[in-house]
C-alpha cells in the first residue's frame, strides 16, 4: 500500500456516474440536480452525532457498507478501493461496519472491529460513518461498547448480524439503548423458503416487524432486500411496520424491486445501500421508475433524516 491513509481527507473526485446520471430517467432530474448543487453550495447543517460535519443534504449515502477486516492482508487496499468506487459512482458517504471473519463474534472480536472502524473514520474523514457492531450475547460488554462507540467515537448507529434472532430477549437491551441514544440499528436479515443451515438465528422481515411493534420508537433498518432471499416476501412482511426502513442493497438486481418496495411500504422508508455490490446498488436506483424527488429521498434524504434524529 503506497498511498497515505492517516488522518488525511480524501479528495472527492468527479464521479463517473454523475448525480444527474444517477437520477436520470426522471423528468425533473436536471432541475433537481441544479437545486441540489445550489443547496450544497449554500452550506448545510451538520448531522448531530455524525463523525464529521460533511453529511449534507443532496449527498448520496450508502447506508450499508463494510470496511475490510485486518486479518485480510489486502485490507488497506480494499478500503481504498471502496472509497475509489464510491468516488466513481457519486456516493458521498458510506455507513460502514466491520464484521469478525468468524461468528458468533467474541467481545474482543467486535471491539477490535469497532476500533478499526473508528480508524477507518479517521482515515477517510467525512466519507466513512461508523456502525458499532456487537454480539448481543455479550450483554453488558455489548452495551458498554455501544456507549463507547456512539458517545465517544462518533459512530452513527448499531449493526447487528445473525448471532441472535432480533426477537430474542437478549437483543432487547440493545434496542432500548439505541432508542435512548437516538441511533438506528441496521439488522442483517433474509427470508428464504428453506432453512439456512449456516445462519440458524437469521432474522427476517417478519421478525423485524415484530420487534418494531414491541419498540415503536426504535429506528430499525432491514438489511439488503436485494440480497436477502425472497424480496417480495420481505417487503410485504414489513408493510405494517412503520419504524422499519428497508435498505436496497445486495447483489440481486431484479427489475421492479425498488418500485414494489416504494408502492408497499412507501418511499420514505427506503434507504439506498450497496453492501459491496456497488454497481448493482447504484443501477437499481437509477433504473427504478420513480420520480426524481423519490429517488432523492432514497439516495440520501431518508438516511439523513434518520441520523438527524440524534440529539447533539
Amino acid at each position, binding site marked *: 500500500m503506497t498511498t497515505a491513509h492517516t488522518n488525511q481527507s480524501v479528495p472527492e473526485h468527479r464521479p463517473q*456516474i454523475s448525480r444527474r*446520471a444517477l437520477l436520470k430517467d426522471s423528468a425533473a432530474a436536471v432541475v433537481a440536480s441544479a437545486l441540489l448543487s445550489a443547496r450544497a453550495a449554500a452550506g448545510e447543517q451538520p448531522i448531530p452525532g455524525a463523525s464529521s460535519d460533511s453529511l449534507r443534504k443532496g449527498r448520496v449515502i450508502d447506508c450499508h457498507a463494510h470496511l475490510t477486516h485486518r486479518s485480510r492482508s489486502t485490507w488497506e487496499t480494499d478500503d481504498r*478501493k471502496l472509497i475509489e468506487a464510491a468516488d466513481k459512482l457519486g456516493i458521498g458517504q458510506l455507513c460502514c461496519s466491520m464484521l469478525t471473519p468468524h461468528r458468533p463474534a467474541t467481545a474482543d472480536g467486535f471491539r477490535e472491529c469497532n476500533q478499526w472502524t473508528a480508524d477507518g473514520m479517521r482515515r477517510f474523514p467525512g466519507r466513512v460513518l461508523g456502525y458499532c457492531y456487537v454480539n448481543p450475547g455479550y450483554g453488558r460488554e455489548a452495551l458498554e461498547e455501544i456507549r463507547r462507540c456512539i458517545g465517544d467515537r462518533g459512530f452513527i448507529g448499531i449493526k447487528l448480524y445473525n448471532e441472535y434472532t432480533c426477537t430474542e430477549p437478549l437483543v432487547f437491551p440493545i434496542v432500548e439503548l439505541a432508542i435512548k441514544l437516538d441511533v438506528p440499528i441496521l439488522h442483517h436479515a433474509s427470508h428464504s*423458503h*428453506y432453512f439456512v443451515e449456516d445462519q440458524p438465528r437469521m432474522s427476517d422481515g417478519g421478525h423485524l416487524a415484530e420487534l418494531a411493534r414491541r419498540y415503536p420508537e426504535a429506528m430499525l433498518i432491514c438489511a439488503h432486500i436485494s440480497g436477502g432471499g425472497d424480496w417480495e416476501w420481505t417487503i410485504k412482511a414489513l408493510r405494517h411496520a412503520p419504524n422499519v426502513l428497508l435498505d436496497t442493497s445486495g447483489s*440481486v438486481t*431484479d*427489475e421492479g424491486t425498488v418500485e414494489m418496495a416504494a408502492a408497499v411500504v412507501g418511499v420514505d422508508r427506503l434507504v439506498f445501500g450497496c453492501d459491496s455490490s456497488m*454497481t448493482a446498488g447504484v*443501477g437499481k436506483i437509477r433504473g427504478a421508475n420513480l420520480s426524481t424527488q423519490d429517488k432523492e429521498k432514497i439516495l440520501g434524504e431518508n438516511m439523513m433524516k434518520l441520523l438527524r434524529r440524534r440529539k447533539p
Partner: protein
Amino acid sequence: MIVDVNAYLGHFAFRRLRHNTAAALLALMDSKKIDKAVVSSAGSITYRNAQAGNEEVAAEVRGHRDRLIPFAVINPFYAGWQDDLKICHEEFGMAGLRLYPNWHNYQFSSSCCRELVNAATERGMVISIPIRVEDNRQRSWLLNVPDLPLEEIVELVKAYPKARFILLNGIGYTGCPLGRKDNGLPSNYAIELSRLSAVLANELGQLITNLGTERVMFGTGMPFNYPDPALVKLEVLDASEADKEKIRSQNAMAWLQL
C-alpha cells in the same frame, strides 16, 4: 450502438416480469438507448415443452427483427427436439440457443446434449448458457435449481472447440480456468458482463486483461433485471472508448453476423 446478448420475453414461473412483451421491451430498450437485444423465452425455462415458448417468441418478434434477435430454448431430453431445432433455425430464423441443463434435468455430458451441441454447431448457431436464472436464495419452495458449476463449462468448451458459447449471468470466472490468462482452452467462448464486478474486485477488468476485450459482451438480463446496473458497469470501466465499443456491440455483432 449497444447490443444486449442477454434478454428475455414472456412469463417466468416464479415471479412477475414487466417489460416482457416485444413492445414493452423495445420501449425499455429505447429508454436505455439499447439498440438490439438477443431474446429467448422465459416461459421455456419451466415449460415441459420448451418449443411452445419458442413459438411465442417467434410470434412476438415478428415485425421487430431489426432489433430483437430470437434464440431458441431447446431441451434435448424432450421428444422431437431435432424437429424443434430445425423449425427454430429454418422457419423462425433463430440464430442461436439458450440451454438450461439444470432446469431441464440433463447434463452437458449426456449423449443427447452432445447431439444437440453438434447439431447447433453444424448449423452455425451460437449457444448461450445462463449460469443461473435467478439468485438461488430466493428460490420457490417447489424446487432447488443450483447455478451451473463453472467446471462443467470448462469441460464443455474443451469438448466442442468448433462450437461458440456465450456464458450469461455468471461470476467467478477468474477463480477457474475460464477467466485465466493462457488457460489452454479454445477461445470459443465469450463472457457476458451483467453479474461481473466493475469496481472493487473488478472481475470485468481482469477478464479483459486475461482474455482480451474481444471475449467480453454486454448483457443485462432484462426484464429479469434492471438494465441499468450493466450499463453502469460499462460507464465506470477503466477501458478505452474503442474497447468499450467492442464490448457494447462489436463483439456480439461479429459473433451474430449482424
